[in-house]
């Protein structure tokens, strides 16, 4: 069977199980677009190629399947860079297909030529420059294997126009990837897993640190079984949220820069940290020199390059997480750690009093209240896609996620503008999910052109803009560390309700807490896209906060909580 390179591309995508792609056409990818009409694949026309990559990413994170983005050469390809880097940092499996100028023109600065394989070399797991139709199938098949295998990540395939136009015999089987997956001998500090179990059984104050890897390896059941049998409390990273139900009694909550105060202190007082599918990012460790000083450490990660990278550990295990926990389970002794739980309870101290959630309604609209109400009104079952900033941290603190893959957010790269397009991908991957975007007024304005995509694709996505009139997280840093000199952080925006209207979407503005419920319910009831502009307190602050590089237990706490007394 002879096919063109363009046909082979789609043929392979279909066989890889792809049903949806996100893209934007142009000259160098036109042959592929022309062939697309013959294949059973839904193409979502984006408004900016960055959006296409975030959509593929959101699709992958919502479903666990590889997301696919497609763009033309030159500017189409370079527009993808931010989305590719975002997927790389958060281990999200996406395949990006770009058109390239004809192979004979490469290197000549031809119209819309950009060296996208060179540009994306450090931000992809791997990339391919395909210059003949014969090479299309092997590249696509290998790209899917690389993107989804081991620690997942983005792969880019750059296909020259002549490779799309040329024809050759198509042989799916001959194109089977042959990846050399060689691994070295044990790393220093590597130990058999019995060492790990001995440490676990002997620990008096152990703590599990659960990251994104829990979901990537599908270890949600195993980690709970392990924690329950050993009676070991769990702290989660931002991307680990949902991997362990928030309502589970062993789940203490989020760690790190804006984590719960008692969680951070518990880490500092633990005698054993069991790090599962997390990578000791600086946002969760604070100052490495004073990090968990009394704890022995066990680290399991599928990527052995993460082991002993930031934190030196006693036992390093390079393994699929699920397999590693399954290995331990039979030998984990049923634990009784009542004393440790009592200590942790004591650490909670006055946290509840400090919690803005428990402050009386003073007529102001606080983002924390909005998120909490949203959680309540959606029965905690929404698939929330959050952007980057203060609202992202409030979402993490106040929306209690019980289900895996129910929070999608850009963690490692912290990409503003991620949420709206990622939510489109998530909704297309899981049409039955109730999808909410929680986004700041700044980040929303970075990619709000994708509202047109929501309208064109008739997607039922709800957008909660946490509108504080500031690039709030940066303003917070200026408040704490730059004497409130608010350089370039006040931000205006359009009338978001009118904007919704202009895109043919439903919109409403909310100024008081009393209005939250009606607006959320109306947005839920509305069959298409909906936008709620929450006009929240402008100079609100995310507490607690570990300043960058500070000791993890030295948090800035909410100052002098206002407590109602009998005298009031």
């Amino acid at each position: 069977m002879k096919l063109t390179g363009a046909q082979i591309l789609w043929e392979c995508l279909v066989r890889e199980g792809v049903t949806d792609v996100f893209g934007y056409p142009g000259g160098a990818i036109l042959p592929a677009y022309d062939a697309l009409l013959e294949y059973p694949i839904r193409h979502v026309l984006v408004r900016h190629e960055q959006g296409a990559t975030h959509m593929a990413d959101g699709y992958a994170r919502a479903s666990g399947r590889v997301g696919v983005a497609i763009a033309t050469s030159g500017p189409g390809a370079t527009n993808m860079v931010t989305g590719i880097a975002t997927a790389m940092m958060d281990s999200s499996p996406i395949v990006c297909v770009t058109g390239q100028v004809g192979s004979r023109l490469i290197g000549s600065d031809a119209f819309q030529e950009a060296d996208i394989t060179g540009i994306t070399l450090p931000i992809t797991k791997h990339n391919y420059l395909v210059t003949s139709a014969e090479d299309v199938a092997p590249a696509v098949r290998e790209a899917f294997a690389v993107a989804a295998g081991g620690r997942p990540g983005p792969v880019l395939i750059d296909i020259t126009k002549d490779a799309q136009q040329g024809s050759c015999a198509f042989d799916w089987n001959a194109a089977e990837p042959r990846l050399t997956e060689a691994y070295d001998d044990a790393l220093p500090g590597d130990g058999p897993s019995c060492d790990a179990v001995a440490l676990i059984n002997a620990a008096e104050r152990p703590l599990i640190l659960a990251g994104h890897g829990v979901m990537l390896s599908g270890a949600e059941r195993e980690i709970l079984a392990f924690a329950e049998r050993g009676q070991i409390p769990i702290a989660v990273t931002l991307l680990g949220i949902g991997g362990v139900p928030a309502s589970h009694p062993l789940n203490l909550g989020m760690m790190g820069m804006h984590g719960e105060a008692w969680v951070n202190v518990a880490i500092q007082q633990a005698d054993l940290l069991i790090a599962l599918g997390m990578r000791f990012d600086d946002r969760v460790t604070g100052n490495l020199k004073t990090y968990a000083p009394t704890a022995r450490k066990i680290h399991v990660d599928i990527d052995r390059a993460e082991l002993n990278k930031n934190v030196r550990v006693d036992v390093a295990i390079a393994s699929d997480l699920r397999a590693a926990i399954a290995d331990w389970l039979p030998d984990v002794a049923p634990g009784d750690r009542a004393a440790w739980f009592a200590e942790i309870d004591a650490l909670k101290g006055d946290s509840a009093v400090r919690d803005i959630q428990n402050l009386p309604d003073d007529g102001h609209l606080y983002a924390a209240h909005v998120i909490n109400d949203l959680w309540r009104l959606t029965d905690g079952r929404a698939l929330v896609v959050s952007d980057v900033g203060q609202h992202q941290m409030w979402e993490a603190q106040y929306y209690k996620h019980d289900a895996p893959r129910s929070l999608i957010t850009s963690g490692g790269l912290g990409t503003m503008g991620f949420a709206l397009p990622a939510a489109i991908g998530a909704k297309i991957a899981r049409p039955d999910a109730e999808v909410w975007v929680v986004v700041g007024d700044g980040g929303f304005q970075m990619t709000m052109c994708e509202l047109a995509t929501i309208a064109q694709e008739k997607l039922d996505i709800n957008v909660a803009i946490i509108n504080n009139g500031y690039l709030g997280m940066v303003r917070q840093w200026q408040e704490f560390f730059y004497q409130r000199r608010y350089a370039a952080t006040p931000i205006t925006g359009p009338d978001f309700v009118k904007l919704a209207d202009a895109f043919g979407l439903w919109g409403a503005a909310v100024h008081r807490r009393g209005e939250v419920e009606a607006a959320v319910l109306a947005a839920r009831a509305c069959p298409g896209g909906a936008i709620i502009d929450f006009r929240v307190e402008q100079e609100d602050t995310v507490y607690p906060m570990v300043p960058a590089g500070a000791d993890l237990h030295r948090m800035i706490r909410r100052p002098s909580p206002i407590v109602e007394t009998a005298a009031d």
Partner: protein
Amino acid sequence: MQPGNMLHTFAIYVDNKPGVLTRVASLFRRRAFNIESLTVGHTERPGVSRMTVVVDTDDYGARRLEANLYKLVPVQRVDDITQTPSIARDLALIKVAATGEARTHVMQLVDVYRARIVDVGPESLVIEATGPEAKIDSLLEVLRPFGVIEMARTGRVSMARGTTTARRFDPPRAPVEAAAIDLSNCSV
């Protein structure tokens, strides 16, 4: 050199494809490792190239580098041969100013170092020397007073001694099937 650091030598076997050198070099740059020397050449196997890379790092850095190298798709195998008994050679071409009297002296030194004169010009000689880097360094030192006009060095190529080249390869841990995990005693 940082405390705890030493020169680590890696033999890296890669697919002989366009762009592989860039991928490897880019990894070193991105992960902030300094390359002391790097050589690339064919091996006995068609389609496979071998790089010898010397890096200044500590043991943890060396292991992390090795792990990162394995993440590159075209990398087939990485050997840290720093501690392995091995032969390391550097090749240098050195052009020395030498006329009259000096010529004889230079030729004597070349003999002592078991180097060779490969080109004789009216006012210069070109010397070819191979050996461990230290030997080349020392030859260079003694030639310097005569006036070294130009030098080209290959950097280190290394090979483990003896007949063993094969090493144990642990296959990566594959994800296990749900059914294979016994959760019967747990409450989930």
